[in-house]
């Protein structure tokens, strides 16, 4: 088994890769010269069409087979066994006409032999995978998905001569420069495609992400290499050393071999260079939209532009720090020096070479006379009979500007990633909320039938726990409480015990972590509107709109609770009398004293006659008359069959007012007792409270 694996999954694929590489360079292509199907050297247009499609599909099939030994997820297995086999069979059958299209020679020759051999190996490999994966269950849906994915993979493998061969030339009036409409569309593609890839891949498995990215980078690299052949090896001045050309090789190498330091050179320098090139393409104005030149240019620059960013976004490489930036600058310096030397040496030997545009006035011309003046300051060095011309100042400025742009680009990347991170965080948060809501809904569905809602006042805490987002410790743990109609319930505890936490979670200011809180049968988390319509809340600090008058504010609250005009009029006038606010109810709240503001808060909490009235330390800072008035309100409200739930530090008042009390300490309810039980044990509430707090401290 190991031997079989070694042969079919290592030796043959490597031989396959070597053969393919040899095939790529072993002929001088003529296929790039045909424009329109009419120009085809083959007899029939139909045959030409099938041959072209076969060539195209062949690239995809070969890359799938290259990568199959290293990836083992379901989709790649399906692709290897179902998609590749028919394609290689087709290519074997059409090897001769395909070779004729590629190199212009008929009959049996080197290319046709290599092509057939390639197809045979492809068939062998596909059959191998078909056999070893035969036990894998595949449904019809999987096949359709596989076909869909295959179509998408084809896009990366498009040979640049295909559109012009198939469709001929586009309308000559279409100009693909100077930010014209078609130019913009091509730029938009370069921006939209990475977003599509990012959103499609970000939630996939690591293996799938890696496969997709390697496939795209290899396919586009080969698509770029198709322009070269064996003659180029002898002519180093034709080698692809332009900045964006280097990206085509660096990206797959870095991806496959995880070369971190080299990668960031493309990240900081190549992306920017590609963007500038996309905005100011260096092909002539008259270049045709469907021509090979366009496809070569745009595929090259799209990859150089978005692949590095996509690789970082999909976490194949980490977000760079200063160390990575330094390395990228070192690589950039190396590259700059290399192309500088190559440019001057090859130019001295009579070849017109200008890698990175640093040895000609191409860029200076676009910038203006000042740049041209700097460019014109040149130095010539004579070495080994060669005249090497440098433009030192221009080249130095060029280098420094690129370094500065790299820094600027780093900042822009930072911003984009920050935005992407915040969107992702938002997405995850919303997902968590949806799950939480769904769970709560499921839990409450069963209970809905049993509940007798909206008749009796009731307040229940069921295993309620609360943890703040920034804390690891629970602020309230497993609180259980029941308050019934007609009760005045006191809530006691030291500062920071969790009284306000429970109250704020009940009224909806804070979300619930665990457990449930129910008001008159309505769960505060799942039916917040219904629950809150039964609550009147008086906070510990009055929270009023100071620019409104007291009357306006209370009417505003009454509107929210849908209180009828008659009811609100009765209640408001009643409370104005009770709290003696006749002279100031129509003045702005800004002019009120502390006591008056508290009274307005109380009135606004009672205007809708809530079944559950919750007060958080309501008597703090009030004068004795006001305290008396509030206490009377509380008694009256409870006497009408409602609940009054309040927390306070004033034990005397709690003792006189409440029927039952609870004591909370460090987030846990220590006890719930009636006042009678406490008195019958022979102690005062104050002593009982102190004993409870101290005993639990021990």
């Amino acid at each position, binding site marked *: 088994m190991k031997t079989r694996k070694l042969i079919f999954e290592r030796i043959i694929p490597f031989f396959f890769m070597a053969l393919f590489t040899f095939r790529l360079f072993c002929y001088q292509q003529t296929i790039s010269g045909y424009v329109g199907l009419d120009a085809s050297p083959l007899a029939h247009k139909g045959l030409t069409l099938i041959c072209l499609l076969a060539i195209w599909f062949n690239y995809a099939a070969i890359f799938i087979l290259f990568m199959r030994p290293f990836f083992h997820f379901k989709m790649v297995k399906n692709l290897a066994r179902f998609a590749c086999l028919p394609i290689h069979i087709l290519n074997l059958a059409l090897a001769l006409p395909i070779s004729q299209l590629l190199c212009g020679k008929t009959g049996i020759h080197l290319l046709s032999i290599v092509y057939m051999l390639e197809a045979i190996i492809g068939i062998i490999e596909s059959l191998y995978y078909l056999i070893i994966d035969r036990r894998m269950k595949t449904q019809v849906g999987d096949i359709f998905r596989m076909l869909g994915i295959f179509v998408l993979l084809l896009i990366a493998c498009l040979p640049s001569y295909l559109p012009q061969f198939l469709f001929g030339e586009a309308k000559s009036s279409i100009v693909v420069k100077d930010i014209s409409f078609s130019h913009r569309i091509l730029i938009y593609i370069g921006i939209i495609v990475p977003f599509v890839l990012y959103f499609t891949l970000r939630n996939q498995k690591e293996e799938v992400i890696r496969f997709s990215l390697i496939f795209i980078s290899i396919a586009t690299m080969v698509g770029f290499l198709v322009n070269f052949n064996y003659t180029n090896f002898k002519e180093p001045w034709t080698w692809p050393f332009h900045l964006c050309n280097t990206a085509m090789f660096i990206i797959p190498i870095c991806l496959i071999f995880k070369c971190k330091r080299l990668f960031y050179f493309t990240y900081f320098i190549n992306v920017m260079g590609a963007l500038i090139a996309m905005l100011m393409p260096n092909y002539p104005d008259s270049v045709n939209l469907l021509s090979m030149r366009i496809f070569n240019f745009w595929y090259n620059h799209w990859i150089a532009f978005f692949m590095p960013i996509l690789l970082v976004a999909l976490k194949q490489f980490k977000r760079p720090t200063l160390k990575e930036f330094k390395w990228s600058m070192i690589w950039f310096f190396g590259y700059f020096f290399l192309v500088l030397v190559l440019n001057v040496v090859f130019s001295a030997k009579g070849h017109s070479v200008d890698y990175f545009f640093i040895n000609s006035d191409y860029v200076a011309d676009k910038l203006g006379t000042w740049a041209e003046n700097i460019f014109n300051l040149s130095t010539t060095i004579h070495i080994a009979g060669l005249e090497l011309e440098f433009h030192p100042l221009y080249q130095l400025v060029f280098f420094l500007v690129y370094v500065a742009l790299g820094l600027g680009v780093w900042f822009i990347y930072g911003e984009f990633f920050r935005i992407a991170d915040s969107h992702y965080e938002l997405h995850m948060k919303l997902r968590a909320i949806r799950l939480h809501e769904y769970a709560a809904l499921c839990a409450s569905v069963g209970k809905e039938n049993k509940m007798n809602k909206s008749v009796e006042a009731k307040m229940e805490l069921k295993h309620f726990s609360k943890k703040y987002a920034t804390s690891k410790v629970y602020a309230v743990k497993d609180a259980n409480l029941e308050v019934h109609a007609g009760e005045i319930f006191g809530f006691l505890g030291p500062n920071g015990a969790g009284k306000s936490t429970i109250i*704020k979670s009940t*009224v909806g200011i804070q979300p619930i972590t665990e457990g449930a809180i129910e008001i008159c049968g309505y769960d505060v988390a799942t039916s917040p509107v219904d629950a*809150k*319509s039964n609550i009147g809340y008086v906070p510990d600090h009055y929270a009023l*709109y100071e620019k409104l008058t007291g009357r*306006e504010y209370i009417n*505003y609250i009454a509107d929210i609770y849908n209180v009828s005009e008659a009811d609100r009029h009765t209640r408001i006038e009643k409370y104005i009398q009770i709290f003696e606010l006749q002279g100031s*109810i*129509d003045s702005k709240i800004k002019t009120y004293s502390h006591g008056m503001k508290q009274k307005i808060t109380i009135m606004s909490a009672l205007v809708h006659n809530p079944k559950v009235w919750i007060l958080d330390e309501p008597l703090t800072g009030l004068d004795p008359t006001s305290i008396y008035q509030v206490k009377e309100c509380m008694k009256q409200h409870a006497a009408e069959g409602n609940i009054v739930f309040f927390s306070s530090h004033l034990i005397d008042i709690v003792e006189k007012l409440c029927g039952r009390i609870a004591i909370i300490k460090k987030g846990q309810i220590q006890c719930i007792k009636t006042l009678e039980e406490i008195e019958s044990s022979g102690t005062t509430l104050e002593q009982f409270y102190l004993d409870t707090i101290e005993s639990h401290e021990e």
Partner: protein
Amino acid sequence: MNHLKTLVVMQLRDKIDLGWIKNKKEALRKVILSLVKFLVITAIIYIILSLCNRFGIFLYDESPRIMVLVLTISLVLSFISCTVELMKNLYFAEDNRVLITLPVRANQIFISKIIVFYVYELKKSFSLLIPISLSCITLLFTQGYCSFWVYIWMWIPVLFIVALPVLLGAIFSIPVLYIYRFLKKNAIIEFIVFLLVLAGLIWLAVYLIGLIPENIDLINQWPTIRNSIREFLLLVEQKLFVMNQLIRIMIGEKSKGGAFGINFLTMGKFAILIGVSAVLFLISYFASRPLFFVMMAKNFELNKSNKTNGKNKKHGHYLTFVNKEFKINLRTIDISINYLMVYIIVPILILLLNAIYKAMDTRELGNWLIYTFNVLLICLPLLASNALISTYYSREGRAGYMKKTKPIDVVYPLLAKLFFNILFSIPSVFATVAIFGRSVQFHIGDIVLFGFAILFLHIGHMVYSATLDIIHPQNEQYATTGISIDNPNENKSTGLAFIISIIYAVVAYKLLSEASLYNNDLTIGFVKLLLISLVIFGSNLYMFFKKIKAYYYEIQG
């Protein structure tokens, strides 16, 4: 004397940041920075005046006319601001309640307030009046029209000149006070007066802009224009006798040779100036001071309304939020003024800009630049004003958290806050776009399309600013101090406003020029702009809802 000094320093600290005095390093830094700023302003003004002279707008010895004009404007503005500010500070200031309890004589409180204002006016004069004066004197000196002594002498009259608006303000604050109290008691009359004044100012602005002629051939008609400017300056010098004399006190009298020099006449005028200042001081002391004592006690009563028997009105469940927001915004001065200024000034700004453009004879590139800059200057102030929205929710302080306790989806009250703005921005946006459109002769359809494009862009950015406030609430700062000194949300909102406006203007340039070249019709360009605005609006609104769901409920109260 010590008491007076303490009072002055205490009140000065409130008006101007004096924290740096104690720290030597900080003090040195502050002094050097201020000096540099002062010298830079003076240098820039000197360069501008020299250029004006080169173009023949005035001769070197006519520089004092510029000083007269600047002094007039500066003194008039100072007088108005001093009158209003003194009225508020003498009679309505909150700190009066504290000051009156201190062991000082009431006279000293009054004098300290006057001194504080005087110091503040002196500080303000270093921003414009003194730099311009120095630049003019430098112009005269370099051409030999005055001696070096003028540089030293001018500081002495300046001390008295700056005091004039303060003293006049103290006197005139009395009638202004009575008018103010009358208006405060009669809200309807106050409103009508306000509307009339506003309408008057708008009418004046539109009239002045309308005076700008079309197609000024600046180069060929330059001699005529230049002569008009010189005549105007001469008129200024002749009609504004008092200001002219004040300037003469500063730089001296013009001799037969044309040079300015300080002589006995100058000294005589200076003595008159001192006398007038003294008289004004005495009048304000004897007239304003008694009133000051009376008003200090009485004026807090104004805030209390004696209204009773208000009605309990019911509004709709959702409309109540809009109603509340309207009431609060209209009663919050800085919000109302901010919006009034933006929504009135932007159309006038665009009217002025286009009046100036009409005076130019532009070629095609010029026309495109006109469109671009119009788009930029329409978007920029509108979007920058949304910075206030990024403080809306936080301004409620703790009352903001209470929304979560109410039986209603929080989206409604949160959105209701934006209604006020959206409503008032609609007529302003369309008026501005209509002004621009008519100036450059767009069709009605194009104007409407463009109006909607700007409106949706504006609302989109508004919603974004509101989202910022939801994600990073500053409720606690507003709850405790009432203000937030450097709200990061405001800065982010303003920053994005600039970025969006610039990009939108560039995109508008590209789309409109393309539409004109290829389709001979700008409509398609406007349609594309509208689509872009709709996308911005839609995406921001979507994010607003999503972020409320994700973050709002977690904001701890």
